[in-house]
């Protein structure tokens, strides 16, 4: 176990550049930083919207995500999530929220989207685990390039096309069990499954 005094110094150097920009938006309403984040993430989010079947609302989703980033940036804590991870969860929540609003008929929404899908770091008072987080992120980045194409395809459909494992199976015309085993193999490589076994 590393001593507590050493940890911040060690991890400080590994702050990701987008996290620094995001903190500047949160602390100083830094517009240049905000613009740089927009330039980098908006084209990704626009593709995310299109691949999720929101082609005619893609720019609108990007706007909603960035308004939300502006409003929430003061809550961002680089120790709890990388900027890209944090922004992904905001994009995901805004996508869910937009679909819910479009599908809503008359009934009130009883539970807010944010109550169902958490943004990392919100309302959390646990000890900071930045080192663990940084390591697992790096591991995913490194392992992802080693995964076979068929596993990446399945994961991409789940994350980018809003498809359940069953829908992926139907679309690729393979059994559900095959989809699940591809996902399990991939998560195993990414060490998410290993965390299961530690339970």
């Amino acid at each position, binding site marked *: 176990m590393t001593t507590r005094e050493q940890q911040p110094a060690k991890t400080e150097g590994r702050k990701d550049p987008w996290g620094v920009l995001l903190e500047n938006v949160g602390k100083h309403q830094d517009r240049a930083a905000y613009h740089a984040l927009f330039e980098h993430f908006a084209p990704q*989010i626009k593709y995310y919207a299109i691949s999720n079947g929101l082609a005619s609302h893609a720019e609108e989703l*990007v706007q909603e995500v960035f308004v939300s980033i502006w409003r929430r940036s003061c809550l961002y804590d680089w120790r709890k999530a990388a900027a890209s991870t944090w922004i992904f969860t905001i994009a995901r929540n805004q996508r869910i929220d937009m679909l819910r609003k479009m599908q809503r008929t008359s009934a009130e929404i009883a539970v807010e989207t944010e109550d169902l899908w958490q943004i990392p770091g919100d*309302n959390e008072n646990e000890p900071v685990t930045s080192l663990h987080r940084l390591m*697992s*992120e790096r591991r995913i980045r490194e392992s992802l390039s080693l995964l076979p194409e068929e596993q990446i395809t399945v994961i991409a459909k789940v994350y980018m096309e809003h498809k*359940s494992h069953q829908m992926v199976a139907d679309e690729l015309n393979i059994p559900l069990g095959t989809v699940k085993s591809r996902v399990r193999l991939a998560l195993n490589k990414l060490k998410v499954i290993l965390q299961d076994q530690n339970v």
Partner: protein
Amino acid sequence: MTRHHPDSLSLMEYSAGNLSEPHALCIRLHLDQCPHCRSRVDTLNSLGAIMMEHQPKVTLSDNSFDQLMARIDGDEGGPAPVMPEPRVSPLQKLLGNDINDLPWKRQLADVSVLDITDRFPGQNERVVLQKLVAGGKAPAHTHRGNETTLVLQGAFADQNGVFNQWDFVVLNEQDEHRPVAVGCDDCITLSVLSAPLKLTGRFTRLLNPFLR
């Protein structure tokens, strides 16, 4: 301390935002009490971010950043920053302060139920709260389709072990069990039942996991 966790595949579907609202609620309530699974979901969220980064990028229209800034500078001073708020559990928002004090419907001597499906409009699943009185026994039963259950209060035991508060369990037609509420509290669970439409007419008495 929770012992029974959602599997990685369910957490991945949660992280991707693909679960139905009632299923997401079960996972969310478990996450609130389980640092272990929060850490797994954080990892999966990073996977989502990296997948997004590896996909094609689509150029935005020329004026979209200006439009955004116009909104930020909007006439009411723009969007208000989100402030950290005192934590209110989604469960509390949904069911109020005391889940014991709800309009429970008694089904058997030891078993009461409350159907809250109508709180999730447009979702194709049945959402049911069940209460087994402390020390009470439910009749032996199996399950139809997949049933996701989260223990909200107390604990129950069956041949698979003891399920404590915030434990997460998925049962299907292979699982026949005879749960008993253990400990001194009534055991209250939240269950989400995948409900094929052809079964809806018979659902009134097909309530899980204590009954069936």
